[in-house]
């Protein structure tokens, strides 16, 4: 397929996977990433659920495929404008440069919910309230799991659904991956600190993927992690500088009060802030939560209503990496077909 050009916006797992696959199909690809390296969130995670594969192993695999391909990579560039032309698209790279392409694939991914917005949990106020992403960083950097004061924690609580399924912060959707992340991280805490008591406060346990339910069971049976159905209403500091949390155990129907050394907030996925500008300039449709809205959730889940404009990965909805990579492959095939038809 000579002379056909595709621009992919967002160099996370979705963008990387689609880029190498389109290139293999003989299409010229430009992969644009706003960060100074490819990989998206894979750069932030340590070991991946469900099987604790190191995030770097997967990233290397994706990188190898890119290196073997003829994909052009452009880092440190944030795309904010796509002009939809009669024949193809113009992608504004900066004040002087524009890239013309026959098709565009949006893989802008997601943003982590800013936990400071749930003020009642004290993130940014109490140093021993951290997010799941902070915990991944701690593990990735091989730092010992301690409190901000350097104490070895004896009790840790995880709180599910922070910034998800929450009308108050305008995030109605379930972020899907945080439940299993909570189970995975709870186990990792027990692996690092067998003596530490671990509690997970959840609304529902959404164990949708292969092996997830099994891991949840293992967390309870093998690792002795306590799962309490109830949302934490408030976190505050007590006199020993520990985090006092209040919740209601909705299964037992009684209030729970617990002092913990660390509170980990399982932050959800929110739409990438650039989606708005990209949608406004390209004509792509957004859902009310700011994620892109594909034509339908079945056979056209990677297509926009604009011919030649495609989506893959978490820019349309929360997904795990497996689903993201599959979507990227599917988008690559759809784009290939589109270019053939318009040859």
């Amino acid at each position: 397929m000579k002379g056909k050009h595709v621009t992919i916006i967002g160099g996370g797992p979705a963008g990387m996977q689609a880029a190498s696959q389109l290139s293999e199909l003989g299409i010229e690809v430009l992969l644009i990433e706003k960060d100074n390296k490819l990989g998206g969130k894979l750069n932030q995670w340590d070991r991946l659920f469900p099987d604790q594969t190191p995030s770097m192993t997967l990233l290397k695999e994706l990188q190898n495929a890119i290196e073997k391909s003829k994909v052009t990579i452009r880092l440190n560039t944030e795309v904010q404008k796509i002009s939809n032309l009669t024949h193809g698209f113009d992608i504004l790279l900066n004040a002087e440069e524009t890239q013309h392409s026959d098709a565009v694939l949006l893989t802008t991914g997601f943003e982590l919910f800013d936990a400071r917005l749930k003020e009642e949990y004290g993130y940014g106020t109490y140093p021993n309230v951290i997010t799941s992403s902070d915990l991944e960083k701690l593990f990735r950097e091989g730092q010992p799991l301690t409190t901000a004061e350097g104490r070895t924690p004896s009790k840790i609580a995880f709180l599910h659904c922070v910034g998800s399924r929450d009308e108050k912060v305008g995030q109605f959707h379930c972020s899907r991956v945080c439940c299993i992340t909570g189970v995975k991280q709870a186990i990792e805490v027990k692996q690092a600190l067998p003596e530490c008591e671990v509690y997970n406060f959840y609304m529902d346990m959404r164990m949708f993927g292969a092996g997830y339910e099994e891991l949840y069971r293992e967390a309870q049976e093998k690792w002795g992690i306590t799962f309490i159905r109830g949302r934490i209403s408030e976190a505050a500091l007590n006199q020993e500088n520990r985090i006092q949390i209040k919740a209601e155990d909705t299964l037992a129907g009684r209030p729970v009060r617990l002092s913990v050394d660390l509170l980990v907030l399982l932050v959800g996925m929110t739409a990438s802030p650039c989606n708005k500008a990209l949608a406004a300039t390209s004509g792509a449709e957004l859902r009310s939560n700011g994620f892109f809205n594909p034509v339908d959730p079945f056979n056209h889940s990677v297509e926009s209503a604009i011919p030649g404009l495609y989506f893959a990965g978490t820019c349309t909805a929360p997904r795990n990496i497996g689903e993201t990579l599959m979507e990227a492959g599917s988008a690559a095939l759809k784009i290939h077909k589109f270019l053939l038809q318009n040859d």
Partner: protein
Amino acid sequence: MDTPRTIHRNWKEYQKEIADDHFYYARSCIRQNFFPGSETAYLNILRNDLSLDVYDDPKHTTCTGIGYHTDIVPLETTMTVIARQFALMTEAGYENFLPSCVTSFGLYVEILDMWEHFPELEEKARENLYKATKREFNKPKNLVHTSDLIFHYREKIAENAKYSFVDVKTGQPLKGVEHIGCHYAKIFPSKGIGGSEFPYVLAGMIESWGGTVVDYPERRHCCGFGFRNYLVMANRGYSVANSKKKFESMAPYKPNFIVGNCPGCAMFLDRWQYTIGEMEHKTYGPNGRGIPVLTYEEMTGLVLGYSPWDLGLQMHQVPVEPLLDKMGIPYNAEEKYLGINGKNLGKPQLPQNCVL
């Protein structure tokens, strides 16, 4: 995103506009009853110490807040009453509305917000008011709770302070527990200084006047008033239980005093200490005593050198003398129960099961 382990002073993100002068004052029904002296002191402080123009209008009424929150007064009536308050403000030539009660403040904010989102409700309130009274109104340009104004002028008050929250014997700052009241910022966090999670309106006063603020786990918990919790007699156990939860949580920090934003909160944090003392022989201050409770007007009055008995501190359940002694404020114990013109008010009975 910020690194997780940095501390923010998040209260600074919640600032609100507070006009400098010219206020229409709306009294609180319960403050005048629970803490006689507080509102007079407040007006004196504003007029005499801060030289502000405040209009105290005999024509205004209740805001209906307590009736509204107990489902006795319907919303339409509440809106019409509030419309009338605004009409009185407009007629008096004022644009800044200054309610002296957290319940009222929350209700005014709520109604203004409703009118913004449902203009037809505002129209209806205007129509109802006009039919009933032939009055019309402008909405206030600035709506602040009375404590917001003291907060606004806290540094000026500090400059003129006669006493501060410093232990005169040890030179150490005194420890204050503050309670802003649920309706001050939990309904509309952006309307309260510090929002609902980083309460700063009273904390700012305490800090500017030499004290430190106790950050205890149940700081944001309801005082226990809870309207129906108290007003329905069968529910009063809930009310005491909530206050008790707070006392148990604050006591280990050994606070020297509690200050309330809402007259209801100050009332329950004061009176329930006596109730718990009688029920369980339990008190939360040193030497088997309670923790003195102040309204913020009383707190400001003390700092500015007003006589404790003119402020009405003899009407409190928990004696405030331990705090006065620590601050070095002189008082005449003999005059404690003398009212205006030296009339003897009579001494209250002593509790049976606790010292207080």
